[in-house]
């Protein structure tokens, strides 16, 4: 679970003196996850993530408690991979899967930890793009 997080985005050039502050990036704000939410990261193997999505979709078709649709979320660098996974799923489904993509902007928090006693800790907000792809099953005509 700890690994299942979005990679951090491109670094903002620190205009602050590194002698006075250390940059610590916080993890993106997390929402509670449904079982059919998949957060794509750059650390896990691509094939493994694809297989995981496939399994969720297939399992959903067979047993009733599964899910007919999944949401693939990708943040920053992982957007590419999220799209890739969704398209691969679609290509491998012989037309039974459809995708619908949404994009959004995620606020990320950078914490600036002071190195000297006299300074207050600061936080900066930086934006990063994210994609949320809904992959769902359609009955082929």
């Amino acid at each position, binding site marked *: *679970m*700890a*690994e299942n997080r979005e990679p951090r985005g491109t*670094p903002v050039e*620190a205009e602050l003196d*590194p*002698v006075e502050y*250390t940059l*610590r*990036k*916080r*993890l993106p*704000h*997390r*929402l*509670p996850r449904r079982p059919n939410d998949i957060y794509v990261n750059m*650390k896990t193997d691509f094939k493994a993530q694809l297989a995981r999505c496939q399994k969720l979709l297939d399992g959903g078709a067979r047993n009733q408690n599964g899910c007919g649709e999944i949401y693939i979320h990708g943040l920053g660098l992982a957007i590419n991979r999220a799209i890739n996974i969704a398209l691969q799923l679609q290509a491998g489904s012989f037309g039974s899967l459809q995708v619908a993509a949404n994009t959004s902007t995620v*606020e990320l*928090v950078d*914490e600036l930890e*002071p*190195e*000297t*006693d*006299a*300074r*207050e*800790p600061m*936080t900066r*907000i930086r934006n990063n793009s994210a994609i949320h792809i809904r992959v769902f099953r359609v009955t082929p005509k």
Partner: protein
Amino acid sequence: MSNAKERKHAKKMRNQPTNVTLSSGFVADRGVKHHIGGGKPSQAEKQEPHSGTGRLWQAKMTSHSLSEPDGNELCSSKVMFKKKGGWKAGPEGTSQEIPKYITASTFAQARAAEISAMLKAVTQKSSNSLVFQTLPRHMRRRAMSHNVRRLPRRLQEMAQKEAEKAVHQKKEHSKSKCHKARRCHINRLLEFNRRQKKNRWLETHIWHAKRFHMVKKWGYCLGDRPTVKSHRACYRAMTSRCLLQDLSYYCCLELKGKEEEILKALSQMCSVDTGLTFAAVHCLSGKRQGSLLLYRANKYPRQVLGPATFIWKSEMTPGDLATCRQLWIWLHPTLKQDILEEIKTVCQCVETIRLAVDVPNPLLTPSQEKNQTELSKERNGKKRKRRDDGEMAGPIKKVAGDGTRDPLQPRSWVSPTTGILVSDLTMEMNRFRLIGPLSHAILTQALKVAAVHTEEEGTGETPHRWWMEACKNPDSLSLHRRQEAIFELLGGVTSPAEIPAGTVLGLTIGDPRINMPQKRTKALSSPENCQDNEKVRQLLLEGVPVECTHSFIWDQDICKSVTENKISDQDLNRMRSELLVPGSQLVLGPRESKIPILLIQQPGKVTGEDRLGWGSGWDVLSPKGWGMAFWIPFIYRGARVGGLKEAAVHSQYKRSPAIPGDYPDSPAGILFAEEQARNLLEKYKRRPPAKRPNYVKLGTLAPFCCPWEHLARDWESRICAQDESWVSWSPDGQESTSLGRDVVRGAAEPKRASQAPGVPEEMMHMECQAHSGPRRARDPVLREVCIAASGTQLCVLRSRKLLKQLSAWCRPSSEDSRASQRARGGCQEKLTREACLSILAHFPRALVWVSLALLRKGSPEPHTMVCVPAREDVLQLRQDRHYCGPQEPKHSDPFKSKNLKRQQRKHEGRATATELAAGEPVAELEAPTRGLWSGPLPGVTAHCSRPLLGFVTQGDFSMAVGCGEALGFVSLTGLLHMLACQPAAQRGLVLLRPPASPQYRFARIAIEV
């Protein structure tokens, strides 16, 4: 073979009745048959002639019947006998020897005697073993010794007798009191108090003792690990759910006084080099918890005492310098004594206050029995109050205890000059730690903010006067509302890592026992709580505002009253049972206790690149006496409990140093290492020499301890010896490996000399010193360094600036250029000789805390050696990605012949060898342990084929990363040397070798700041 047979026979015959003799063997048997004639058929009618046992019986009978006069009696059942064919009658046949008749009475008499003899023989046990033990293995059943009915019916009677005997024996030393009397509340308390005289119990002790392996440590009884198999489950709880720990054994020191006085005093004990100090702005305001390293006054960078966390009490009126500030310093119990003494020294606190607030009444002490004396010392306020009420019935429940301090000792000290009051608040509070993302959900569900006391509820009878007062004040009431609002917001945050590190939140809550679920549930963070509104954003960015950190827990009197006025579990349950609707919510109204608590966010993993925020959580501080009242509700909300082992796993996965084991330069760390070495040695010696690793042959000099001093000294002398080589050293790290080999060879020479068995060890030691002496003097700069070093002791590099620099140098430069650039920043120096020398000049014998991640296989363990890879290892790794690593060749055992000689000498007299180096846990006074290096260690760095760089202190397979991970220290000198020698792309590659294995494994070194 025949001998054994005879013995067997003798055993068989031992308990035979005298009138029955057992003829041995078949031949005798036959002979008897031949001789008598009439004997044989006479038995045939008495017994069923089984072919197997029959022969034996026959032998017995026949031999006996020799004396009988009924030799020629007629067998009436001759036909039957023949038909059945009980035994083969031999070549001559049986028919002609059968007697004509027998007399019934005499025959029966004789048989009766025989039968009685046989019965006697059967009932008598042949050995002194238990009945069930005489059964053959295939007939034994589980719990046979316990349950008689599991035995075969024929043995049950005997077993019954035995069991009764055992019961009687047990009865003799039973307790004087009956079970009921022993279970009586007061008696149990007395007993409990007696049992925790030496090692104090935490409030959750009994809960833990039922579920955990308990250890006696640091003056407490602590749960080490759960008895259930739960290593992985606890890891999962930390990662995705919630792990609960009782950290009440942590010690709290309170400093009261003027802000600038406290800061002035304490600034001697810490350094800005190591990070923020007590004076950090956000900590000083009371908004955040701070953490730092404490040193002996003005001794930085040497003589570290240990790490500590601290919280300042927030000021109600900021900016007022005259007000008395309050500071809590939280410490590990092993560090407490040293740090307390040091704080007392720097604050010039000399006057002891005999329990400033509650002076013990001297009259009480002699009148009470011992337990109660102790008790009255522990809980003076309550005791005295009770006494005044005339409640002398018995000792009340001892809520607090402190294992790190003698109960009779003072716990407060004041300084006449600075006006600082230092008091020891150990065990005055409970500290529970919740780790994991669900800790928010558990906290918000288990704790309910206290109801505001309204005017119409009446005033007189309530014991919670302080809360009434607070509710009258509109300011504090609005503050309470704000705290409540923030606390509710927490439920919508899915991970504690999203809150700023060290955030403090004060609260006043209602009794957590009131709204307990009926049975254990799992708290889950609900999505509807997670509204991403402006308030949550504010909380995540700014943390809790300063005012909301206020809590009444800082006030000792309120805490005391809260502890005293706790409704006991018994009363609460009684009230619950008296409810009109069983199972409905208990409403106590104004009688419900209000408990001030403090919530402190604990940052998880903040350093490094991966798994940020892992293991973050909240600490809950509650007044003493309320431990179980918080503990059970947390568990009922789905928290899993971990012990010391889980705490170690947590700190290891967080890659943070463990206390006190990872502070080898602090007194507590040294003590810890000694104790650990002793235990490991004992464990090692318990095994026979053939069944334990021979560390001498494996080339492991110190399998049980890490000789840091040796290591640092060796590296220093090694570099001094090779100082001229540093001149020819190029900054790009392209210099020859032959140089490196020279280093190895050069350092190996004194080692070989010291290995010579004949020379007394002390002399060798001197020699080594003498060797390194002249070498030092070559370079003027280095000489200075050496002079500075010779007087100093070991220290660990903790300056953040230098660590950052080292961290950048440790990274392979070509692999991730962007990351390294980012880390380096603008002013980062290159790895040059000058830079190295300047660092080494300040820290000649320093260690660096590093984390190591294995590249491929291998799971390191503590005391694993960190070694410098040779050039060819790295080359081979580059060619073959699946290359595991080199192997250490087998070493010769120079002690083997010595041991033999010693054994021979032992016969003549006492061996007079006193080859023992001071402070060597491996060395022994008497015969050296086989398989261990005895005597002083030779050059540790060059003992093996790869030069030794350092040791691992914590290491295991990391479930968080999925490969082996280790934490440990390396010599700074050695590290710089290694980094300089390695090409840029392979920088930071090291080899790890566990003490009991010849296999080296590749690992990557990283310094996380």
